[in-house]
């Protein structure tokens, strides 16, 4: 299986072509800028934040936006802007590993289900359907009740509940492809199963899944925020957009800026990743890549 996964890495030039294609589309460019700034601010969070996001300063509590505190402060006097930036870091720390893990596992299982024997397909589909039959939040509640709230728990819950989505898409694509003439041609030319799956089917499936993943990231970010809002996600004092919203919700009469600070990035991230995902969908399909 390792050689199959190794093949997912696109060469630099291909990546450059894709990025250039996305940037040419106005919505794609907006998405790219938003996503780029979120990623940038998350990576360099410790240099960007003006204050320590968990340092309390009770005398300056619940202030509005000002030159010293760009987005004001919360009930404990912590700088909201610093907490928003660090919250982005937490959001990506959950979303990226969870999505990557779910995509890799879902892709592998889905391709096996689609290409392998019928009984294995049935078994995997049963497994996927079983997982999908749990409502995500209920499943999260159960897991948190068992192992306690933490970042890892959120990642695990998101990953486990997303695998069936990727698995099903990968399976459907594999099923469509396995009877296509070029796969038959490959078989007639003596390609092994690993070669057919890894070299020939994977590039046909990965684009669809990458688009799905890009569109899925905001859902995961919202889920993390939701779980944190319910107190099931990251533990305080770690800043998360969900925690920010939760505090802001309680204090909305005293200071509305916490809700803005927690809500706006979620909205921006959702828009950004969705624009990027849609634009990516148009670009990664070489059949649509006519005019270049």
């Amino acid at each position, binding site marked *: 299986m390792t050689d199959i996964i190794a093949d997912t890495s696109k060469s630099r030039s291909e990546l450059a072509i894709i990025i250039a294609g996305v940037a040419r589309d106005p919505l794609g460019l907006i998405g790219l800028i938003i996503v780029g700034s979120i990623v940038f601010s998350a990576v360099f969070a410790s240099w960007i934040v003006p204050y320590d996001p968990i340092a309390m300063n009770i005398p300056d509590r619940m202030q509005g936006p000002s030159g010293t505190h760009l987005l004001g402060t919360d009930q404990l006097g912590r700088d909201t802007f610093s907490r928003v930036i660090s919250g982005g870091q937490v959001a990506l720390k959950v979303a990226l590993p969870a999505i990557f893990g779910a995509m890799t596992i879902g892709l592998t299982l889905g391709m096996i289900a689609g290409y392998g024997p019928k009984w294995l397909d049935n078994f995997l589909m049963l497994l996927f359907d079983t997982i999908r039959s749990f409502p995500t939040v209920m499943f999260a509640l159960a897991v948190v009740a068992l192992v306690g709230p933490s970042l890892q728990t959120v990642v695990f819950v998101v990953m486990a509940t997303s695998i069936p989505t990727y698995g099903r898409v990968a399976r459907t694509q594999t099923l469509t492809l396995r009877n296509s003439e070029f796969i038959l*041609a490959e078989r007639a030319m003596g390609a092994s199963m690993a070669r057919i799956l890894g070299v020939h089917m994977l590039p046909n499936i990965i684009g669809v899944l990458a688009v799905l993943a890009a569109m899925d990231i905001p859902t995961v970010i919202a889920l993390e925020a939701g779980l944190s809002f319910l107190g099931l996600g990251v533990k305080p004092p770690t800043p998360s957009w969900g925690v920010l919203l939760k505090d802001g919700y309680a204090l909305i009469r005293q200071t509305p800026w916490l809700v803005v600070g927690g809500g706006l990035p979620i909205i921006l991230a959702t828009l950004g990743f969705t624009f990027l995902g849609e634009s990516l969908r148009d670009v990664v399909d070489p059949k649509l890549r006519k005019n270049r």
Partner: protein
Amino acid sequence: MTETLLEIDNLSVDYETARGDLKALRDISFDVNRGEIVGIVGESGCGKSTLISAILRLIAPNTRFRNGAIRFKGDDLLTRTEDQMRALRGGDISIVFQDPMQTHNPVITIGKQMVDIQHRAMTSKKEKLATAAKMLGAVGIPDPEARLKQYPHEFSGGMRQRIAIAMALMSEPDLLIADEPTTALDATLEVQIIERLKDLQRDFGCAILFISHHLGVIAELCDRVVVMYAGAVVESGTVREIFHNPKHPYTRRLIECDPGHIKARARILPTIPGEVPDLANLPDGCIFRDRCDQAVACCAQVPPLTRLSEGHNAACWLNHAEEVA
């Protein structure tokens, strides 16, 4: 002396269906010699495709080999394991499929596909790319180095089919199976592909098993012809014998029905009346009897494929004067 490369010996293949066994191939026998081009002709559903999938053993799960043998270079392919078969496919036996628009992976560049198909060769990627470019040049694709970087949709249908031929010949096979390679192309391209195949066959010296329902193409390209009808060989012989001296009523009617053969402008194009018999429920006697205008009493018996002259066989009682009389 010519050496037999592929020998199909009394091959019978059934498809197990809910309606009972579909007798897709019945007692098929013919040879392909080294460096020879053999055409297989017959209407749709006569078992041409089943024959190819049987040779390569890329069969549907409900396929059953009833009896007979497929001997390639003397050893029976039906006794080979799946791994041994896989080594043969794209090695000693290659294939070109019917529809060039579907035969390449749409999301991988032609160069990458042509490098990938050389997975058995123990050469560097650079050498494989050079081989790929050389092969593209050999099938007449201009500027091959640059075109290796392009995707299949950037080529025309005729070019794609030539690329498919290049890929099939890359392993320098002993036998190239061409499954109606020109059916999906227009007439001018058809000629182009045929000429190309002829040239390549001369250069590479491989035998070609050419499947088509187009008699003109067969006459142009092949050395020998096997005429199939409803899963059986009705006549086989040299191109000259088959086209000038057909000995089976089906072959005769098939030639009459070829639009290229009709001289005068006709109001109604000739056809063969009737339908191909139901293969799951075969009638007794000669399978062509119901559609044959020369059927006689003894056609109630299955006629054997009989040798009429050197390299010319037909399965019809009319060639057995004493029994018809």
